[in-house]
């Protein structure tokens, strides 16, 4: 934005919903870069025009400077595998847009995303700056397409659509898990041979125009080309191994979510270079996940698996992501690993260029009052695309109303 600073016309042309981002330098911070640079002390980070423009520059030039007083600066945390912005109140059907009986592999719920949802401002309290939204789909084993949104609360929150294909495999209350795996294999095989056929036909020039693939076929083709991640929810070790086999056979960019019994096949997952997305506090057994424990994250990381964290349960709990990472730390994960698991590793799983503090990266940053994982710390400041956002939510307004003394009915306290 700096270039246009004096130009009112340029300002007027800028997106009406985005706040004018002045350049900001954060000095004297303990910067956890989540890169090979590790942690930098007394460091300076400069952001401008939505991106990080300098780290420890020789001279600091910025519109404003914030002295971090040694406090911790991290990349903004990244949520995933939830329905933030698609569900306001889970039990109120008219506020739900995450699923539809007819939803198939093409289902793109990003058009239903509501940046004004009360859950978004609330989630900022947890230092979450962006989120990978995963709709719940319908009857198809494919649950649709993930999309990425930031937590600015502005109408231009959508960062990217059609970011990954969502798939559910595993235990069924009716029927057999085998059929989903079989259907998946068939789909991949059919698409692969159709592609080969189209290629040979094109070569032989038998037809004037190659037949345009259908929308769902294009998505499967993108999976076969490894262009789009396949996020498969699976728990039992046999399902995980079956997916790994498909990855190897078809060259899929596979990510496994939930991964309850991943600990039983950690070595195979590591060798296949498949990242997993787990809820660190899921430790109670199911028949598909008999071996998960609070140490699952540690076991997987020790085996060399790339692990990302998500919260368990309801989307409204997304703000707790940092605490759940804290529980993983208490059970053996290092703080560096835990931070990567809620920033860079999440981003990487979805081929999303975020989650690190490095020059040229998205300026999504959080300055913490203290240890980001502790219950006692809080977000002091946060920036999304280089613009500062507060953490005030509806909950704060309600609290203030009821702790403020007044002679008038509470409804007059606003």
């Amino acid at each position, binding site marked *: 934005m700096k270039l246009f600073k004096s130009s009112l016309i340029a300002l007027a042309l800028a997106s009406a919903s985005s706040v004018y981002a002045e350049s900001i330098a954060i000095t004297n911070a303990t910067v956890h870069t989540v890169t090979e640079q590790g942690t930098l002390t007394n460091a300076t980070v400069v952001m401008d025009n939505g991106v990080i423009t300098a780290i420890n520059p020789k001279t600091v030039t910025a519109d404003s400077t914030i002295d971090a007083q040694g406090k911790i600066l991290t990349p903004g945390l990244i949520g995933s595998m939830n329905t933030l912005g698609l569900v*306001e*109140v*889970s*039990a*109120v059907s008219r506020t739900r847009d995450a699923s539809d009986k007819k939803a198939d592999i093409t289902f793109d719920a990003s058009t239903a995303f509501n940046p004004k949802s*009360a*859950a978004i401002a609330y989630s900022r309290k947890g230092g979450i700056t962006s989120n990978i939204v995963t709709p719940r789909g319908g009857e198809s084993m494919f649950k649709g397409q993930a999309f990425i949104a930031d937590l600015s609360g502005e109408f231009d929150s959508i960062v990217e659509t059609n970011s990954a294909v969502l798939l559910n495999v595993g235990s069924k209350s009716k029927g057999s898990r085998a059929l989903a795996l079989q259907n998946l294999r068939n789909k991949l095989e059919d698409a692969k041979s159709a592609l080969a056929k189209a290629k040979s036909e094109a070569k032989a020039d038998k037809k004037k125009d190659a037949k345009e693939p259908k929308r769902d076929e294009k998505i499967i083709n993108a999976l076969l080309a490894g262009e789009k991640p396949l996020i498969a929810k699976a728990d039992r070790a046999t399902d995980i191994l079956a997916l790994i086999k498909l990855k190897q056979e078809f060259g899929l960019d596979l990510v496994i979510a939930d991964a309850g019994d991943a600990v039983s096949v950690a070595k195979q997952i590591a060798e296949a270079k498949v990242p997993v997305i787990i809820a660190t*506090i*899921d*430790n*109670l*057994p*199911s*028949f598909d996940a*008999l*071996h998960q424990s609070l140490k699952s994250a540690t076991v997987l990381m020790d085996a060399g698996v790339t692990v990302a964290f998500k919260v*368990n*349960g*309801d*989307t*409204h*709990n997304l*703000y*707790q992501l940092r*605490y759940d990472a*804290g*529980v993983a*730390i*208490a059970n053996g994960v290092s703080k560096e690993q835990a931070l990567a698991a809620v920033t860079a590793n999440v981003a990487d799983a979805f081929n999303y260029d975020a989650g690190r503090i490095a020059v040229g990266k998205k300026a999504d940053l959080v300055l913490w009052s203290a240890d980001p*994982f*502790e*219950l*006692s710390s*809080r977000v002091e400041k946060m920036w999304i695309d280089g613009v500062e956002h507060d953490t005030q939510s509806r*909950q*704060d307004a*309600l*609290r203030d109303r*009821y*702790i403020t003394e007044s002679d008038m009915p*509470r409804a007059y306290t606003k």
Partner: protein
Amino acid sequence: MQKFIPTLLVAAISVSLSACMQSEKQDEKVVFNKNPYPSTYQAIPSKTVLIKNATVLTGAGERIDNADVLMSNGKIEQVGQNLSAENAMEVDGSGKWVTPGVIDVHSHLGVYPSPSAESHSDGNEATQPNTSEVWAEHSVWPQDPGFQAARAGGITTLQILPGSANLFGGRGVTLRNVPSHTMQGMKFPEAPYGLKMACGENPKRVYGSRKVSPATRMGNMAGYRMAWSEATEYKRAWDKYEADYAAGKNPEAPKRDIELDTLKGVLDGDILIHNHCYKAEEMAMMIDLGKEFNYHSGTFHHAIEAYKIADILAENGNCAAMWPDWWGFKMEAYDMVQENVAIVDAKANSCAVVHSDSGTTIQRLNQEAGKVMYRANENGFDIKPEHAITWITLNSAKSLGIADKTGSLEKGKNADVVLWNQNPFSVYAQAEQVFVDGAKVYDRFDEKYQAKSDFMLGQK
């Protein structure tokens, strides 16, 4: 029934006549066993244990640094500095913290166990809006691996409640968190029963969708009132029987009703109310309902909006059991504030409790309380750890009617104790050793004290 009325009338007259004429001859008094499934819990044999040099939160509001805790014969013997005892097994508490055993007033462990399976989904008799006749203890699967996970989180006592589909869900039971292969082997001796009631969305949704009352909140209220009215008549009939018998008459005992037995137990003051109730206006009415029918409205669970009526709760002596931050899953859970527990707690004579309702968060109830403390202190409160611990110990014990037995580290109380690796309100806190009645039931570093349920045994 109509055609039997004259017959019954004759019988009643003849009974009363004979009672008048032969007052010296009484039939055997009809008495029901109020405890037909008695506790068989036996404390695990214990040694005298002395924890040395720890930071102690007594649960009764005190913090004592560099303090020792002495347990013997299953009881708290002494808490103070520089204690010594002969033949005591000493535990070094340096750098560690000690609290009373954690109590969860709202759990469904055993009735909705892991693994989740239809065959074990025994927590809610959602077949009619009043199922006061069911007892959660009859559904408890003691092999639920969740009990062990909760023990590793310092839980020594927990109340198992039926679910919330019904206006009256049935009786809850308070358990010691010790491994046993029978429910009775876990049952907390002499703890009062609870009666689960539910306000709001759940009953009206479950029954309204079946075109059965209640379908509205006013239907909920009507359902409670009709039940309490019937229970009042039932109690009156039994009280009259008792009084007449005591007066030497030979009255005929009223017909026993298992459903009304539970409601009468509440009216007699033997059974405590545990009321799933989120919203301020509903809690305020449930308090009046109790006054209308002469019982105490007890503890409100999931009291998301308790902060709006903190004064009313304190004035009426109601406990409110709350989550720190769950919200948004239902309309009645929309108005959550993170400081709810602290706002309720700030009133004189309040009883703020942090509960879980979850097999997952029950494992970290200490941290759930911690979240409230820190958020409240950021917003003008000044809550200390020695106070916040009461939300998961002494206040919980009060809610369950067992505060004379557990909930604080006071001489003579059950030695239910947790040794934490650090301040229990840290995200990194872990229970290292857990004692129930002075016996070690969990040790993080000694597999000998890590129980395993039958279900998990031998699983590959």
